[in-house]
């Protein structure tokens, strides 16, 4: 029996749970401790765990580096997009009250969207940092 079989089976059970937990923290950040920064880091930690156990080639087929580099810009763009949408809706930059009819609904919508942008950027940046370090390791071996 391969000595890594415990790690592989354990990781296959744990990684979906970690990803789900990251999504829970992302969207529940208004009612409990959490928010975009924490969720992005936990999401990236799940991907790093997958890399440590299954290898860099497998994870780069699942999460391609091109997608990761693009997503890190998409998050910041989403954030600024919400701000500009608030300007078009009649308020100042990043004023969420004007995004919906009820100010509380507008605030909640604005906060959910920008936390999503923050979470996407943080997760993508940490994954791309890890890809850069790991790719350099493989280059040095060859």
């Amino acid at each position: 029996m391969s000595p890594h079989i415990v790690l592989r089976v354990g990781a296959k059970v744990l990684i979906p749970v970690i990803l789900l937990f990251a999504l829970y923290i992302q969207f529940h950040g208004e009612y409990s401790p959490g928010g975009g920064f924490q969720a992005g880091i936990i999401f990236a930690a799940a991907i790093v765990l997958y890399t440590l156990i299954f290898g860099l080639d497998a994870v780069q087929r699942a999460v391609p580096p091109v997608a990761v580099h693009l997503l890190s810009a998409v998050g910041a763009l989403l954030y600024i997009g919400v701000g500009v949408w608030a300007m078009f809706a009649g308020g100042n930059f990043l004023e969420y009250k004007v995004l919906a009819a009820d100010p509380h609904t507008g605030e909640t919508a604005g906060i959910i969207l920008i936390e999503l942008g923050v979470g996407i950027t943080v997760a993508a940046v940490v994954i791309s940092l890890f890809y850069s370090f790991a790719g350099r390791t493989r280059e040095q071996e060859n």
Partner: protein
Amino acid sequence: MLMGIFSLLAASLYVLLDAVDVALTEAAVGAGVSIILMLGALVLTTSEEKVHDAKHNLLALVVVLITGGALIYGTMDMPNFADPQAPAHQHVAPRYVQDSVDEIGIPNMVTSVLASYRGLDTLGEVLVIFSAGVAVLLLLGAGTYRRRPRPPRKRLK
């Protein structure tokens, strides 16, 4: 490993000081990401270090002791720990604590300050994180090193 223990102790300290959001972030960052980056850097460079003599360490020790003494002398004027009359609790923080639930409508005050009252600062932080990612991409490459030869391009005749 010691850095992981240090991070865990710092996260527990934050929980004791009622900073639950910060503790969650510190635990995730310190135990998840920071250790992997350090290990990656140690694999890429050497993991042994040169042994130094103790001579130039003495000057560093004296500088550190003088700076520490000056800082402790400077803290004599600071307010006591958890003092309700401290200036940190006086000016704008009571307004955030009392009005944020009415004005914004979500229970977590840290998220409402982070995303709504100080939203522009958070935008700056996101851009700084993005720039750090771009800087590492420039320094270390994109991690897409392939050994498969590319297929020859078809030419239209």
